[in-house]
């Protein structure tokens, strides 16, 4: 036994010694000193960027980095601030369905020109079913885009995007799209060059040297799971507007570790861990922004054996029994806003914000126990149930710390305010989505972030047969309103219809909004021109500057 283990230990040590030797080489870089006059910023992201292929990437960090190393036809910098990007100017037809973009003289990082053909190729690549892009639905606004992606038509030339010449790109849409300009700044619509993509094959975008850049920065180095280093792109058309020479992005998963790196001056900005927010706020250093995420309870109205889940009055009873203010105060440590309506307050309306043009408050910030009980009485009468404790359900949620705390407080509030005892089921993220897709849940605590700056990104989720409507809820009136809003070219009537739909959803739908998420962060005073967004890249550092 002894000799056996000895031999085992020695073998392990030998094998590992060899491998560890290789590891040394990998970890020896990084200590090199930068030149003094260069301007550098550093920050952390909490996970590796899984993919930087513009048409295949989906996650928030790819969008963040992509914004800096690529450029679409249009660049959005800050809230609704639309700027020309690769397109110098553009015009739209009378029926708002045909857009023509005129490209400027711009170059890829290898010195070749960026052409309209690169955009045509990229858009069709996004929609090509063989690309298997998760975000291909972003291209469904384009004429025949959805049909091509679903294989209903196979001829890519029928797709409504065409390079008329090297400098002119024409895009035909299925319907008028109010937010089409800002959509063109989204990662999925960044150009890629056909010959380069085909040369790289499956390895395209796997490493820093397997990508071409046309944005303000180029990806200099990509040490997977460790750091990304961006450098100013000398070929960028607007390079004089770019002040930063180098951006270091560290991959640090633990929020407390990341925050301590900021405290030690290793990074220039960072999120504040929830537990420390009060302390940092007391020192006057905390900043806040809305990151666009909204969280809500979603009822499964077709749950066998639990008819109360489909009962509109029961859903309202739960909605009024939740004390959103108390939840935000304790779970979120005061960061975030109680959601009293469905549409995210940041989303654009006709001129101002949608919620300013259409003010509305369905739920109260605090629990309204009287109203909740009233609705519960009604529900019990309709369901012919006399004992409220029978109206129980299983609350499905993620396995994170915040999700757990949220579940615990809602569980307790429903017990105190309605006398209903619910059970909590915590599962990993993927398992939650699977249960939702199979509609194998009672009530789920879910979240949604906007794809574009318009209320429609939230409203169209709940139409009958919608890809994300896994509640089983179906309402003809709602469907009609959404369909009208999606096809009309009268944007005022469109907004009215969306507001009607929102009210209908709050009064009769299976959705109970809980909170609009806000993030608390700190940023060094020397950093100027950093912009936060609730849609698109969370941090836009492209025009940032540092003062020495």
């Amino acid at each position, binding site marked *: 036994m002894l000799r056996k283990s000895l031999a085992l230990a020695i073998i392990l040590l030998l094998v590992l010694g060899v491998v560890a030797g290789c590891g040394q080489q990998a970890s020896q870089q990084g200590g090199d000193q930068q030149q003094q006059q260069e301007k550098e910023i550093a920050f952390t992201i909490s996970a590796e960027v899984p993919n930087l292929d513009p048409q295949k990437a989906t996650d928030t960090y790819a969008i963040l980095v992509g914004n800096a190393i690529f450029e679409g036809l249009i660049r959005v910098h800050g809230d609704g601030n639309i700027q020309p990007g690769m397109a110098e100017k553009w015009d739209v037809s009378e029926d708002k369905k045909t857009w023509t973009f005129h490209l400027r003289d711009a170059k890829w990082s290898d010195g070749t020109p960026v052409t309209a053909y690169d955009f045509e190729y990229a858009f069709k690549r996004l929609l090509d079913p063989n690309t298997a892009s998760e975000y291909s639905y972003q291209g469904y606004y384009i004429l025949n885009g959805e049909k091509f992606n679903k294989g209903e038509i196979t001829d890519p030339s029928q797709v409504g995007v065409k390079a008329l010449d090297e400098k002119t790109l024409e895009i035909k849409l299925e319907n008028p799209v109010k937010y089409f300009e800002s959509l063109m700044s989204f990662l999925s619509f960044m150009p890629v060059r056909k010959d380069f993509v085909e040369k790289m094959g499956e390895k395209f975008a796997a490493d820093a040297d397997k990508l071409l850049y046309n944005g303000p920065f180029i990806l200099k180095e990509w040490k997977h799971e460790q750091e990304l280093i961006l450098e100013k792109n000398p070929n960028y058309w607007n390079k004089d507007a770019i002040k930063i020479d180098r951006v270091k992005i560290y991959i640090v998963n633990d929020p407390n570790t990341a925050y301590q790196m900021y405290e030690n001056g290793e990074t220039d900005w960072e999120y504040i861990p929830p537990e420390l927010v009060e*302390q940092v706020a007391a020192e006057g250093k905390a900043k806040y922004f809305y990151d666009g995420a909204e969280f809500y309870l979603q009822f499964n109205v077709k749950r066998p054996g639990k008819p109360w889940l489909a009962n509109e009055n029961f859903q309202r009873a739960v909605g009024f029994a939740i004390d959103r203010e*108390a939840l935000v105060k*304790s779970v979120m440590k005061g960061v975030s806003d109680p959601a009293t309506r469905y549409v995210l307050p940041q989303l654009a309306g006709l001129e101002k914000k949608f919620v300013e043009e259409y003010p509305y408050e369905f739920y109260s910030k605090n629990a309204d126990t009287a109203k909740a009980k009233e609705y519960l009485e009604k529900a019990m009468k309709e369901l012919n149930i006399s004992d409220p404790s029978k109206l129980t359900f299983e609350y499905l949620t993620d396995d994170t710390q915040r999700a757990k705390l949220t579940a*615990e407080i809602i*569980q307790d509030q429903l017990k*105190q305010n309605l006398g209903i005892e619910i059970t*909590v089921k915590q599962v*990993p993220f993927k398992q939650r989505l699977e249960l939702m897709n199979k509609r194998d849940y009672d009530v789920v605590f879910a979240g949604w972030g906007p794809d574009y700056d318009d209320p429609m990104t939230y409203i169209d989720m709940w139409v009958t047969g919608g890809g994300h409507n896994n509640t089983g809820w179906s309402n003809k009136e709602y469907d009609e309103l959404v369909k009208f809003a999606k096809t009309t070219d009268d944007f005022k009537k469109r907004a009215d219809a969306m507001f009607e739909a929102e009210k209908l959803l709050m009064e009769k739908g299976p959705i109970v909004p809980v909170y609009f998420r806000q993030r608390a962060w700190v940023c060094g005073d020397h950093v100027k021109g950093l912009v936060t967004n609730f849609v698109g890249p969370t941090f836009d550092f492209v025009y940032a500057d540092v003062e020495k």
Partner: protein
Amino acid sequence: MQTTGNAVTKEMFEHVGKNISQMEAIARPSITYWQDAWRRLKQNKVAMLGLIIIILYTIMAIVGPYMTPYDYRTTNTAEIDQPPSAKHWFGTDTLGRDLWARTWMGARVSLAIGFLAAFLNAVIGVIIGGISGYFGGKVDMFIMRTIDILYSIPYMIIVILMMVVLGQGIMPLVIAMVVVGWLNMARLVRGQVLQLKEQEFVLAAKVLGASHSRIIFKHLIPNALGVILVNLTMSVPSAIFTEAFLSFIGLGVVPPHSSWGQLAYYGIQAFRVRPYQLFIPAFFISTTMLSLNLLGDGLRDALDPRLRS
């Protein structure tokens, strides 16, 4: 050779005769192996301290939550993050729940998981390890390779699968822990049995025609019991740690329940501003570990026949 004056003479002796009743009497009370072990364990002050702490915590886990008027799960946002006070002895947590009540409710979960998982691991490990070591050859090969395989399957897959099949709760967690937890015990027992089975008393038993199961369970296992018991004591902490680790990756017990591991995991995130939220659960985890380790050490000494005097 000369005789001296004080030579031994016959007169100096006296005939006692047979006394049947005294012949069979035992001068000192006979003590069994276990009585002896217990006696020596009692002499080991440090080990006894460990035992007393464990018993104390177990009692507190039962009665502790009822010693305060506050319920372990009732949130109160008017009293969030209160430091320990006369009102809330251990303070309150981030949802305003009383931490005294939560700590002892958490003790129930942690201790139950720890003891249950350790016990089941031991039972399964002893049976399989015993069989493997005793029969050797193909059986042993098969069992040892099975252990290799189980050792290499990612633990989380098994935990998540158990959650899917059995739902959530303490039992599925314990079962998931047991599925891979018995491996160490089995290896240990196998090693012991391999050594013991070459000894003469086993040969004697075989010659007398004892069955395999009799030899394993009446001769081999009892002789390995000391090692088994010590390992059992030590594996309670590891089960408690495993639950804490599962809490770390979000797979621990579900609301409204909590465990020491979960309390400590939340505490570590807040310790810079509210150290008591970390140090209270960490204190109980650490002292439990400490006590069980001390008890284990004491048991090892007490059960070691070589140290018997």
